[in-house]
């Protein structure tokens, strides 16, 4: 006998899991909600970590930021794994077709030499900065508190790896693999890059994961991406370097999207308490100064005489962004 199960109309016993219903009521929940809320263990742990015996495995005290409910830090993009990979797969398809077009039509050869050299000097060593961004965000994914923020930080870490890989591909499109060695040497030894490398290495030894979030995701990215993937991009596009612009399209789109997520986290955490707001503002002030110092020589290389003006614009926009988030910095 053929059973047609579809014809049965059944009233479910419940609409979602209890921990979701406790937050939102017993109504159908989204995949983001069921895949995110309260899935990190919170209450009972068997053993103290050998690597940090004074704390428990998932411990709220790994940052000085305090939240009554860490799940207040939700992701406005509602990224669970499926939504995240599907969104990125679309973006990578666009990026891939840009790289293909450049390769098929030999567009890289049309980039004026001066612009090409700027790209090689500035964008390629930047892949090491991106790798630092991966490390900071994987630290948060491991030691942060609550899936609402740890989950997107892992996605963010993987995105930084992807950007580093796109930058690598740009080097290989504009030049030979030797360009990667040259860029690495500039990163390790070149005067232009030492302030930035020192800054990035300093971020790698921070312990407070929310401090890393502010220093890396808000400040470093908030100043670097507009500088290189907006202002410098315009310069490339205006000067016949469209091929480079095409290859960095992913980064431009990505930073616009991720900045909205970063802003939502900062806004909620700062609004929670005066202490949080002060701590975040202090971090912004501290890391904004250091990041600007590290960016100054790079801006000089990229924009020459206009460097100060461009950096000034980037800074003004960044400060306006922070003000909107409720920070007086």
């Amino acid at each position: 006998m053929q059973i047609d199960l579809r014809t049965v109309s059944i009233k479910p016993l419940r609409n979602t899991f209890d921990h979701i219903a406790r937050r939102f009521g017993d109504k159908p929940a989204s995949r983001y909600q069921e895949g995110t809320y309260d899935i990190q263990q919170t209450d009972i742990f068997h053993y103290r970590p050998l690597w940090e015996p004074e704390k428990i495995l998932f411990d709220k005290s790994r940052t000085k930021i305090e939240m009554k409910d860490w799940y207040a830090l939700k992701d406005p993009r509602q990224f669970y794994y499926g939504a995240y990979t599907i969104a990125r797969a679309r973006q990578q398809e666009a990026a891939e077709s840009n790289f293909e077009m450049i390769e098929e039509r030999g567009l890289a050869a049309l980039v004026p030499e001066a612009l090409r050299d700027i790209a090689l000097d500035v964008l390629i060593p930047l892949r090491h900065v991106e790798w630092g961004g991966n490390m900071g965000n994987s630290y948060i994914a491991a030691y942060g508190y609550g899936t609402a923020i740890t989950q997107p930080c892992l996605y963010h870490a993987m995105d930084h790896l992807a950007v580093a890989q796109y930058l690598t591909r740009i080097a290989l499109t504009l030049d030979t693999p030797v360009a990667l060695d040259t860029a690495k040497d500039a990163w390790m030894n070149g005067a232009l890059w030492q302030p930035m490398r020192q800054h990035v290495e300093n971020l790698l030894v921070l312990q407070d994961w929310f401090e890393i979030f502010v220093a890396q995701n808000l400040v470093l990215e908030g100043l670097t991406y507009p500088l290189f993937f907006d202002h410098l991009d315009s310069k490339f596009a205006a000067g016949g370097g469209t091929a480079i612009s095409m290859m960095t399209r992913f980064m431009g789109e990505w930073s616009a999207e991720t900045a909205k997520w970063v802003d939502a986290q900062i806004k909620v955490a700062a609004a929670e308490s005066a202490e949080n707001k002060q701590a975040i503002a202090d971090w912004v002030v501290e890391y904004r100064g250091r990041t600007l110092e590290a960016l100054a020589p790079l801006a000089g290389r990229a924009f020459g005489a206009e460097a100060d003006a461009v950096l000034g614009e980037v800074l003004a926009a960044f400060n306006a962004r922070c003000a909107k988030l409720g920070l007086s910095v």
Partner: protein
Amino acid sequence: MDMHVKKLGLKEKYAHMTRGLGWDTTYQPMEKVFPQATFEGIKIHDWEKWEDPFRLTMDAYWKYQAEKERKLYAVLDAFAQNNGHLGITDARYLSAIKLFLTGISPLEYVAHRGFAAAGRNFPGVGPRVACLMQSIDEVRHAQTQIHAISNYNKHYDGFHDFKHMLERVWYLSVPKSFFDDAFSAGPFEWMIAIGFSFEYVLTNLLFVPFMSGAAYNGDMATVTFGFSAQSDEARHMTLGLECIKFMLEQDPDNLPIVQKWIDKWAWRGIRVLSLVGMMMDYMLPKRVMSWKEAWEIYFEQNGGALFNDLARYGIKVPECLTQCSVDKEHISHQAWATFYQYGGAAAFHTWMPNDEEMDWLSAKYPNTFDKYYRPRFTYWREQAEQGNRFYSNTLPMLCQVCQIPMLFTEPDDPTQICYRESEYKGEKYHTCSDGCKHIFDDEPEKYIQAWLPVHQIYQGNCFNEGVDPTAEGFDPLAEVLKWYHLEHGKDNLDYEGSRDQQNFQAWRGMATQNT
């Protein structure tokens, strides 16, 4: 341009895309950037010698994984729309899935966090990238499992508060403590515990039985996430094996440490697998193969080949495993007998096998079932039929290491419960086997911390706030169940007469009759 890209070999290109990104820090000391790299005693001289077990750049990763996700969620949507849950053989089957969601899925989540940590902590870029990919895969596994099982939760009991239960319910501390143990160790031990023992040695014994069980029993939701995870699992297994070989190749001093971890985690894993064994032999209405057969195929044969492969590095088959060839005839029956007796405190339904099922068990376990288990099970069944369903109302003692109740017997005497005892700082601690005792004695400082559910009940830590254990008529079991969020009469007790059984029959009836 393009020419250069094409000239590069795949391996070389992947190296540029990953390990080329890293550098040795000089403004900050490497020990400070990678503070967990050395405390376990593992010596690594050259991270560049790491062989990438797979070569996936992020763009390719997104592309493949998104394709899999689109397909998976299309199936899950259709499953929900078409009442796919009514396609299972029998709602008894769902006890297995309840055990999976409460005991395994939350651990996928811990695997995600632990691999994020490993993906930050190794000084080598190659292993870090591989660990991060596993970390993101594991959040996928946790979520796809929750999403697939979400539809069952809407219609059946026992699923509804899985995270709360994982942290509290007595038998769930078995898998939970396994992952807590691994994550609280250092990054190298983590790789042996999860990357090697769990993914490489044991995955076949966990996933294959669950997924084939799902296929045999018409559970398309579970089959779909299981299949979809297969290619991820293949990557995880190669990572685990690569990692162990790398440690062994880097320094001869690593051998005794790695051997110790392999011994420990093989035994830890085998103890967790008792739950899988019982699922295979008792919880599936339509059975795939017996636990004993699975053990022989996936462990004795496949695992044997693996240990032969590792013998050239000096790795020996863990000694505790010799006991397994005896245990494989017993553990599933002993575990199910225990759950039947404590069926009042389990978040799934229990039952005694029917005649046909008993015959199947006799045929699969000719040396043991009729001799040791059939008489007891038949007696319990008869008693239940006469209205004397047997529930044990004393709490069992738990093993200090694996946290399973003391229910396993001596390897040389299946009528004698096996106890081992250790003393540490003047206190006595009990373990279930030589394997667990050995683990305890090696790290007593760690295992004395164990949050043993039964001890905690005795200490009064498992009641809701405001409950007064000295009040008249105080019912400790009822109060513990409330604290578990386990709904008495719905989540627990016999399948026969349960709400799951009644609803399943009624809904199926609606589908098959014209009323």
